[in-house]
């Protein structure tokens, strides 16, 4: 069988794809019980009779989770159903404590939306959203023995801390007509969802921790012959690649699946409709359950939970809290801040956009805010192996720090020392400047004394300056800065040196 490349596959076939994104909400508690929704606790310490599925335990819906789901639906342009209900999805798997998952089936809370996705070159693609529904997460299996994977394991260990954590699953309608840009659109779509849930503040949106997870459905169909509409060509059999958990992996999964299916089709072999597992290490997929056999979930309305009927007033109130579309916000801020495309892309990639925006809102200039977050603070975050938002410093503190520089109270070097103190928990920038004694030496007599001493140590400098080599003053500025442990105002020092040389600056 000839192995096709993605590009060849796209030459030969017309791709159709759809994406399911699971967003883990950052509520304080789980979807149907009061156990803490927090990542990283000791196994089975955030569980109770409800999320362990013990007989007789009754679930009660978390109002905040409903609110988050509605806000997400509104941000995706969805209609909010006046009455929606939960349903049981029945299947057996050890990470599912009750042997059913509480989800939504025929009456999801949010339905029929659309989302504009902006590609790198500025092209806007509108993705139609079929639904966004609420459900609960499953626990976590650890496979023991064999290779550590699910296949060949001797037994498994289950931690139900994640079981019952609130999720919103967003399902697109089939996306057609993207051709060779399919992989790019798939990636950009998931990136946009991630940006939106972060902007809404309903999820931390960390793909690497699984708080945003994607399943990628893909099928290929023949290209329409001349005179025929592509829409008239029926869809091919699709595969569903589960748990593709990084933006890069989304692109790669589309590449792999398109090439795999095209190779089969060209060899006259059928594509099997099935679930496939994504393997990050090899950038490939392998078959899981075959869909037709396994997928009979016998959904029925959840009798233990009452319908969700959000009032229209509440929905409108929530609509007022929906932030601007991330791509539009980026374009607006780039313009307002005067950043280049490249600078803006770096800022977004570093997760610094909101931080810079807040720093500017607190009074700093955009350039100064960018300099701090993308410079010194990025370096510190990198050293500590954390993301910028995780650093123990607020945008307001950075604005305050820059204010001290702008007022001439400290210089850049002292500002970095003050920042070090702020990051060490010593207080606000002003407090650190006071407690560490970091103020710029502005007392002229002290500076004049330091300049005179430096000039005495390097007697040839004055003559050079008088000869017109003004840059020679740099050596004296350096010496004075050293003598004052960086606390001198370099501009003032230069003025004094030029005065001593009898040259006006």
């Amino acid at each position, binding site marked *: 069988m000839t192995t096709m490349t993605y590009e060849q596959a796209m030459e030969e076939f017309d791709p159709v794809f759809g994406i399911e994104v699971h967003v883990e909400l950052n*509520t*304080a*508690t789980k979807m149907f*019980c*009061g*156990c*803490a929704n927090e990542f990283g606790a*000791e*196994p*089975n*310490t*955030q*569980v*109770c*009779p409800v999320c*362990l599925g*013990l007989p007789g335990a009754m679930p*009660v*819906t*978390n*109002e*905040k*989770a*409903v609110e988050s789901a509605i806000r997400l639906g509104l941000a995706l342009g969805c209609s909010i159903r006046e*009455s929606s*209900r939960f349903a049981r999805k*029945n299947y*057996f*798997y*050890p990470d599912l404590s009750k042997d059913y998952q509480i989800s939504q089936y025929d009456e999801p809370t949010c339905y029929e939306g659309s989302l504009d996705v902006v590609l790198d070159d500025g092209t806007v693609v509108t993705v139609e959203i079929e639904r966004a529904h609420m459900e609960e997460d499953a626990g976590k*299996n*650890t*496979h*023991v023995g064999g290779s550590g994977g*699910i*296949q060949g*394991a*001797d*037994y*498994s*260990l*289950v*931690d*139900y801390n994640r079981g019952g954590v609130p999720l919103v699953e967003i399902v697109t309608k089939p996306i057609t007509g993207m051709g060779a840009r399919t992989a790019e659109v798939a990636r950009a779509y998931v990136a946009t969802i991630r940006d939106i849930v972060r902007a809404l503040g309903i999820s931390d949106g960390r793909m690497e921790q699984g708080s945003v997870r994607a399943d990628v459905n893909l099928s290929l169909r023949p290209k329409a012959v001349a005179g025929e509409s592509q829409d008239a060509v029926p869809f091919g059999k699709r595969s569903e690649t589960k748990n593709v958990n990084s933006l890069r992996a989304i692109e790669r999964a589309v590449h792999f699946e398109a090439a795999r299916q095209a190779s089969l089709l060209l060899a006259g072999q059928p594509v099997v409709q099935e679930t496939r597992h994504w393997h990050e290490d090899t950038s490939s997929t392998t078959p*899981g*359950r075959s869909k037709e056999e396994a997928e*009979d979930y*016998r959904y029925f*309305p959840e*009798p233990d*939970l*009452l*319908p*969700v*009927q*959000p009032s229209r007033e509440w929905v409108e109130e929530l609509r007022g809290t929906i932030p601007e579309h991330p791509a539009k916000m980026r374009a607006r801020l780039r313009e307002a801040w005067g950043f280049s495309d490249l600078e803006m892309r770096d800022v977004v990639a570093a997760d610094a956009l909101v931080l810079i925006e807040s720093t500017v809102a607190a009074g700093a200039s955009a350039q100064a805010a960018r300099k701090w977050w993308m410079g010194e603070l990025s370096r510190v975050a990198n050293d500590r192996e954390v993301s910028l938002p995780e650093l123990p410093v607020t945008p307001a503190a950075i604005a305050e720090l820059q204010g001290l520089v702008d007022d001439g109270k400290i210089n850049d070097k002292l500002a970095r020392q003050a920042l070090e103190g702020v990051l060490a928990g010593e207080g606000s920038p002003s407090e650190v400047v006071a407690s560490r004694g970091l103020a710029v030496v502005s007392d002229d007599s002290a500076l004049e004394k330091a300049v005179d001493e430096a000039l005495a140590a390097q007697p040839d400098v004055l003559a050079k300056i008088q000869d017109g080599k003004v840059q020679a003053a740099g050596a004296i500025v350096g010496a004075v800065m050293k003598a004052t442990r960086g606390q001198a105002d370099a501009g003032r020092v230069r003025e004094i040196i030029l005065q001593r040389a009898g040259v006006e600056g």
Partner: protein
Amino acid sequence: MSSLDRSDVARLAALARIDMSDADLDRLSGQLAVIVDAVAKVAEVAGEDVPATSHPIPMANIHREDVVRPSLAQDDALAAAPDAEEGRFRVPQILGEEA
């Protein structure tokens, strides 16, 4: 007339992981068909103006505030587990069927 036959019952039993003998299937498909048919009579009585009802009590929006409540201690959570290891429930090998 019955809407449920023997093969439906066999399929449901397989989905529910219930091992049934041929005799079980014969007996239960008869019994279940009677129940399903009895319930189906409701549909005959309900006119077009009666919507399908999943929740007979007219209540909605029974929600809980997003406030953490104490969870079980790990030992208590695992107390009824047939087997446990490293603070987790130990379960048999998962996949013969999915591999």
